[in-house]
């Protein structure tokens, strides 16, 4: 597969995973605006911004006490994370970039995938702001649903070649890079509040894990059990373990990349992240330290994958 095409498909998947994840976070967050306390609303915003490694727009300090300020500020923040074009991680920017990568690489994906994604893009492009802000949770839910739909269409129609694996790799790396910082933010913020259970239920909902938690652990909300489920349960599709395992599987299916050293590093990083969760997590006394190591691995994995398959030195490459 052409190296630049692989890179395009990889980025397409990353951007769409980002748009889907952020849409889910914002969908839940705007639902909070209806009936939750100011503390809880601010907790949610702080967690999202830390997950995205972004500072809120100037002037928004998460400080206002009165509800009406919280609501007004919330819409400013939601706008910053949804439509702000100068924010490369906003939902709008991420979908636009994902779709643009797909447009350039549409010969590498199935026609059904392209039509599905393009239809979603055309809908979002033609929306009026007033329609969105009237019922923002509907907008986020629909956007998330369209991205799920795209993933499903890909699953049903895409040829299982190298492009498929790069797409899955991009999705896994992006999810790991979002989910782990979100968990770290949750651990840290919940320690700063007296309400120890604050935010854990929404963590489950973010990862579509509320029902699974109920089945495995019953109805009592215990933070350490939530953390266990979200980090180390291989049966939960959005768990950190399932995500790093997916990355390792796709990497294994790709065979060796021409960038030999980077290739070895990539396999080491994916394997190490998986091993950390499989073997060290159950006995970890400081879960955030271990998660920070997984976070570093996920970030380094991105560079190693590109070094192995895309940005390799030509001198080292075999001629075919």
């Amino acid at each position: 597969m052409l190296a630049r095409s692989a890179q395009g498909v990889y980025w397409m998947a990353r951007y769409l995973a980002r748009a889907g994840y952020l849409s889910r976070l914002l969908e839940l967050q705007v639902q909070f605006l209806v009936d939750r306390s100011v503390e809880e609303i601010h907790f949610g915003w702080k967690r999202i911004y830390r997950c995205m490694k972004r500072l809120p727009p100037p002037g928004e300090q998460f400080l206002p006490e009165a509800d009406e300020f919280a609501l007004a500020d919330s819409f400013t923040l939601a706008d910053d994370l949804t439509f702000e074009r100068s924010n490369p991680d906003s939902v709008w920017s991420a979908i636009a970039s994902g779709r643009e990568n797909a447009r350039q690489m549409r010969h590498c994906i199935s026609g059904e995938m392209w039509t599905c994604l393009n239809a979603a893009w055309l809908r979002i492009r033609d929306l009026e702001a007033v329609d969105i802000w009237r019922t923002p949770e509907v907008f986020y839910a629909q956007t998330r649903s369209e991205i799920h739909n795209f993933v499903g269409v890909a699953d049903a129609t895409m040829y299982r070649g190298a492009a498929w694996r790069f797409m899955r790799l991009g999705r896994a790396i992006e999810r790991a890079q979002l989910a782990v910082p979100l968990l770290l933010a949750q651990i840290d913020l919940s320690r700063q509040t007296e309400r120890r259970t604050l935010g854990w239920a929404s963590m489950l909902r973010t990862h579509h894990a509320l029902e699974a938690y109920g089945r495995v652990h019953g109805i009592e909300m215990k933070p350490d059990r939530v953390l266990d489920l979200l980090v180390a349960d291989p049966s939960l599709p959005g768990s950190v373990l399932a995500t790093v395992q997916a990355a390792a599987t796709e990497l294994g299916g790709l065979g060796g990349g021409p960038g030999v050293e980077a290739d070895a590093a990539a396999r080491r990083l994916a394997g190490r992240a998986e091993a950390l969760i499989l073997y060290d997590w159950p006995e970890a006394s400081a879960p955030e330290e271990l998660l920070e190591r997984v976070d570093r691995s996920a970030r380094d994995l991105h560079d190693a994958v590109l070094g192995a398959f895309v940005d390799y030195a030509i001198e080292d490459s075999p001629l075919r």
Partner: protein
Amino acid sequence: MDFSLYDFDPAIYDEMFVGEGEPRDHCRAVVEALRELPDDDLNTIQERVTRSFSQEGITFTVYGDEEAEERIIPIDCVPRLLALAEWRELEAGLVQRIRTLNLFLADVYGDCRVVRDGVIPADVILGCPQYRLAMRGVNVPNDVWVTICGTDIVRTHEGFMVLEDNLRVPSGVSYMIANRKAVKAGLRRLYRRSRVQDVEQYGSLLRQTLCELSPGGRPDPCLALLTPGTYNSAFYEHMFLAHEIGAELVEGQDLLVNDGFVYMRTTSGLRRVDVIYRRVDDDFLDPLVFREDSLLGVPGLMNAFKRGNVALANAPGTGVADDKSVYAYVPDMVRYYLGEEPLLQNVDTRLCRRPEDLEYTLDNLERLVVKRVGESGGYGMLVGPHSTPEERDEYAKTLQADPADFISQPTLALSRSPCLIDGHAEPRHVDLRPFVLTGNETRIVPGAFCRVALRRGSLVVNSSQGGGGKDLWVVDL
């Protein structure tokens, strides 16, 4: 569809009607079926055709000051019809013309007999900016210089005429296929009844043609389509064709030359490329030979090509044969190289480099179409009958400053075909661009990108100037 108010004009050839309300024989069944189709149904079909282009992202990109805008070419859902017998005539003329042009190119980059025998003046060829000295003495695979040609054909009461031979990087074939797909879906029953010749095999024929150029006949050659990139207005077509022919869609940055061979960067190392369907102009192909500031090309590509290690379609330098000055000599070339009379006529063309032609052109500006030799896409031209005296005065000054840069032609009454305009049938001027493929043999799919001037009275069919497209049905009725 209501044809009762259709503005039939006997002075202009109508593709569908031979007289007021009187369809041509091969159009009779289609006209009757269209007459029975309620306006609402046809409007719905038209909307569906337009929507399908938008949903599938069949777009061209226009770059403004701030951001890029994706646009779709407006497509009229009423097909233009051509009888199979007419098509066969046209096809024979196109085959004759492409044979001639390939012989001409081999000659002007070889012995130049055509100049020595006085058929074409040397300065017409050597003065042409598209004449590439770097191609002198180069052998091209199978003697095929022009692998893909998109010839612009117009029709008047006098018959078919060639308006332009596009021999460099002709575009539009993706619209031929996309129009067919969309219109066929809208007019299913009519399509089936009309026994329309298929065009969707174009991709496989193009692949077969390109494979025939494989250096040294290497089996299962690696094909690549070289695009200038996503900023090119025809990027959709590049992507579409790469997919159709099973080629990698590459940019210059994806290719490199090592030891006289071309390789592309893949995820498993460097892979040798055998045939490149290039959609990058000569000027930008290789910075070591052509424009040294080009970032779109591949350093060393021409060296690999000259050594016969990679085939380029079309070969560099073909632009000299579709230069607007050289065009005027194509009928003479047919007689010279083939000893045959041309089957397809040229539009009467005057070269302003000749004093008598310049004088004629200046005296008749209000009746002529004047074009710059090096321009295309409808840019830089004056359509005399549609111009103001001030525009003509201004244009005359430019023309006199550099007469060799201009040609003039009579304003043709291009044929018209019915279009669905604001819910009813109105005639609009049309041309067609069939695509001619040449490898071991010449192949033409029975169809074309039919361009239509959608503005009332306009003769300019270029998409950049308000033109649109139509599906062309070659029917066996």
